[in-house]
Structures are given as C-alpha cells and as structure tokens.
C-alpha cells in the first residue's frame, strides 16, 4: 500500500508508442515526497518517455500510476489540469512560448494559476536574476542562446513552487559552472519540500547532490542499484557521496 509520503507510485507500468515494441516495461517503483532523484541511462533508454508519464503528457499502455494519491489512469481528462499545475516541468526541448518574452514565459504558470500581476512581478524578476537573466527579461526566446533558453525553461518550471519538479536534461546546454548553479536551485527548491526528478546522462552531476537517489534506465527496464526505489528506501545505500 502507498505510504503517506509517496508522491508517485508506478505498478507494472509499460509503454509502447503505437504498435512498436515496449519502450518501457515492468516499471514498479515509488517516489517519496521531498527526495531528490536522478534518472540516468543511455540515450534512447527511455528517460524522456518515463518523464512524459510523470508529467502527464502520455498514458501508459499498461499498469497503474498514482500521483499525489490519485489514480491518474482513471482520472477524467478535465481533472488533469489541476494535477498538472502541481508539477513543474523542464522539457528536454525547452518549449518556450516563442512570441512571449523571457519574463512572460516565466510568469505563465503563475498567470495560469490566477496570481495577480502585482503579486507575480517581483518573484518573476527575482527568479530571472537568479538564473542570470535579469537583464534579458524582455528578450524573446529566439534571441536567447540555447543555455539561456534552458535557464528560462528552468525558471518557469520552478517559479510556482511545484510539489514535483520533473527536469529532462536541464543542464545539457550550459557550462559546468552554470550547471552546478542550476543544480543548487533545484536543491534549494528540494529543501523547501519539492520532490525533484532530474534526468541526465551527466554522471558527474550525480555526485554533486548529497542525499540524491539514483534511478537507472537500461533498455526500458529500471534497475535499482542503490535500492532507492524500494519502500522504505535504504537511504544509506542510496546516497551517493561526493
């Protein structure tokens, strides 16, 4: 049975695109509220596919998924938006709204949640400063570099203080120094209570976050080298020391 601190629970989840072979198979694991997870695996292992299930962009072809204590498979479509607003997502391809400025892109989740302009102006400006883009807040995505776009995408994902942050290669386009800084941002969000899942093939990152847990995807199967996904998690074994 799901514990009170389970924020995500997969049971025998499989995913195939169309009539192809299964991209993900037999995924059974639990994500615990407030923890920091890395999802690793070779390119094509299925990291993005798993994250898509997490950010409710894809339904599994089999199995059961519970998020925030709700069965998301059986949930009627019209209940999904409220669930999505509890998530923060950094897409692998950023997905910034092209005609909106950096500021408006970051403000989008707050506006969707009905936060007033007065209340959102300062937090959005602060967040842009934090990711080093305070001076570029009026810039359109097309005029930003890949790394800058990625930082806008991250700022947008964290601005509404989501309960679960899902980030797909969030440091893929930035220099190591900025990567570390962004990781600190995720960590501070994590300390405030957000559960974080970061997909990356950069194994050097894993050691940078103490107490992080590792999920490894290999050919669509999840291996659990650190026992992080069991319940209760073996924290000592799961921790990767710097």
């Amino acid at each position, binding site marked *: 049975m799901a514990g009170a601190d389970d924020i995500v629970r997969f049971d025998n989840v499989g995913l195939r695109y169309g009539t192809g072979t299964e991209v993900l198979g037999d995924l059974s694991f639990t994500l615990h509220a407030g923890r920091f997870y890395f999802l690793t695996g070779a390119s094509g292992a299925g990291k993005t596919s798993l994250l898509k299930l997490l*950010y409710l962009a894809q*339904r599994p072809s089999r199995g059961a998924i519970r998020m925030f204590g709700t069965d998301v498979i059986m949930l009627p479509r019209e209940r999904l*938006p*409220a*669930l*999505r607003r509890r998530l923060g997502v950094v897409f692998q391809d950023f*997905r910034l709204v092209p005609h909106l400025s950096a500021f408006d892109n970051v403000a989008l989740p707050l506006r969707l949640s009905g936060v007033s302009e007065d209340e959102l102006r300062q937090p959005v400006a602060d967040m842009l400063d934090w990711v080093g883009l305070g001076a570029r807040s009026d810039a359109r995505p097309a005029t930003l570099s890949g790394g800058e776009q990625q930082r806008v995408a991250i700022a947008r994902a964290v601005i509404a203080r989501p309960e679960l942050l899902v980030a797909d290669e969030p440091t893929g386009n930035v220099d190591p120094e900025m990567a570390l800084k962004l990781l600190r941002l995720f960590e501070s969000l994590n300390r405030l209570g957000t559960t974080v899942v970061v997909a990356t093939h950069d194994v050097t990152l894993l050691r940078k976050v103490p107490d992080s847990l590792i999920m490894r995807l290999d050919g669509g199967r999840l291996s659990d080298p650190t026992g992080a996904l069991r319940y209760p998690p073996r924290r000592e074994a799961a921790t990767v020391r710097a």
Partner: protein
Amino acid sequence: MRLPLSRDAAIGSQRTAQVLPAASLGGPMPWVIAIMVALTVLTAGGAISLANFASEARSGLEGGVTVQVVEANASAREAQARRAAEALATAPGVAKVRRVPQAEVESLVEPWLGEAANSEVVALPALIEVRLTGDADKAALSRLRGSLAKSAPSARIDAQADWLGPVFGVITALRWLALVLIGLLTLASAAAVWLAARNALDVNRATIEIVHHLGAGDAQIARLFERSVLLDAALGGAIGLLLGGGALALLGGRFAALQAGVVERGALSALDWLLVALVPVIMAGVALYTARRTVLARLGRML
C-alpha cells in the same frame, strides 16, 4: 517566499491576453464576416420589407369588393350603376359603398389610354367600391351577385384581394427563398469560422501544447480563441451592418422616390431596423459557438 497560489482559479481575461499572439483569428476573417453580415442584412431587410408590403396590402384589400358595370351604352350604364349602388347600400354584410366618380376612373386609366380615356370612344366601366363587414369570400360574393342580378345585370363583382393573389404567391415564395438564403449564409459563415479556427489552432499548436502542459484547462484555452473570434465578429459585423444597412436605406430611398404608392407600404419600421441590426449579433453568436466547438474538439484529442 511562499507564493499565493489559488490553483484552480480561472485565467483572468487581461492576463490571458498575453498567452496567444494574434489578437484576431487573422487573415480575411473580419472581411468574410463583414460580407456575410452585409448579404444577410440585405436579404433579411428585403424579406421584412416584402412581408410588410404583403400584410399591409392584404389588410387594405380584405373585405374589399369592386363592382364594375360594363355597359357600352352610357345612359344604361349610368342607370345600372345607380341602381346597383342603391341595392348594395341596403344589402346585408355591406359596411360601405362608394361610387367612384367617373373623372377618377378616367384618371386611373389615363396613363394607359391617354387622351382617349375621357373621350366617348372608349366605354369605361362604372366603378363602385364596396367594403364588407366580413371577408370577401366566395359566399359573400355570390350573395352580392344575387342581389344585383336584377337591378344591374351588367355588373361584374370581384374581390380586390383576388387581383393580387398571384402577387402574394410570388411574395410568399420570395420570403421562403430569403429564409433559405439566410440559412445558407449562416452555414457558410460558420464554415468560414471553422476553417479559420482550425488554421489558428494549427498556427498556435506549439503554444497551445505548452500552455496545456502547464495546466491550462480546455475552457481557458478555448476562451483565448473566443476572444479573437469576438474581436473579428465585432469588426466584421460592424462593417457588414454598415454596408448592408446602407444599401437597404439607399434602396428604400429609391423605391420611395418612385412614389408608386404600394411600395411605401414595404418601408422598414424602427422595429424592423432593430431586427436587421440583430443580424451581426446572431452572426457573432454563431461564430463564437463554432470556434468554441472547434477548439474544444481539437483539445479533446490531447491527453
């Protein structure tokens, strides 16, 4: 810094303004709506005008009977006409009898006969206008014929409405045609909006998917399009009403200038103009509904 989040709050309209780029569905949308509204206004105005004409003409002719004494011999005609008028005055069901003065009969036919009208060459009939208390139906007419059979054997009795019977037929057919035209125009407008909404959806597909993944509800996204459609419909409707209404007013003026009597009966009243002004409002409603259905149908295919 705990942000005040009300998670299920609707998007405020001034905030959604920044989400989708174009303020309008774009392209020729307002012009298509303008043309549709103008054509519908013209058709509706014409139909209302015809209806006014028909009902005015009918009420003017109802219970009206014309008695013609067709007699070549002038003195016999005069005698029969006088006796007929007397007999009619006392006949049951007759409200009013008026002998049309011969000078008036001559002036009526003068446009057709010219100077010959007041000469003795052409024997004009004597005319008596009768207004019945009831309808000028077959029974009433044959009763009148009975009462005139002896006193005025040369009298011909006709219900006035009968003369216009074929005209009423044409008017009825035209009104149906107008109704069908209005229906077709409305359908065509809906189809145009449907295409424009689909196009706008395709153009903004990426944005819609992003906003959708960030937790915007279908209704919130649909509202963005409704705003655009409403802008287009307001602009197009105003232009269309101006064009169509202007054309109607101009046509009305031309007809009035004919001074043909009957035509004035078709003039639009203030209430009719109000009805015509409803056309763009209804068109906007159709556009709004179509756009909403289109957008919701498309969004329904996303998870």
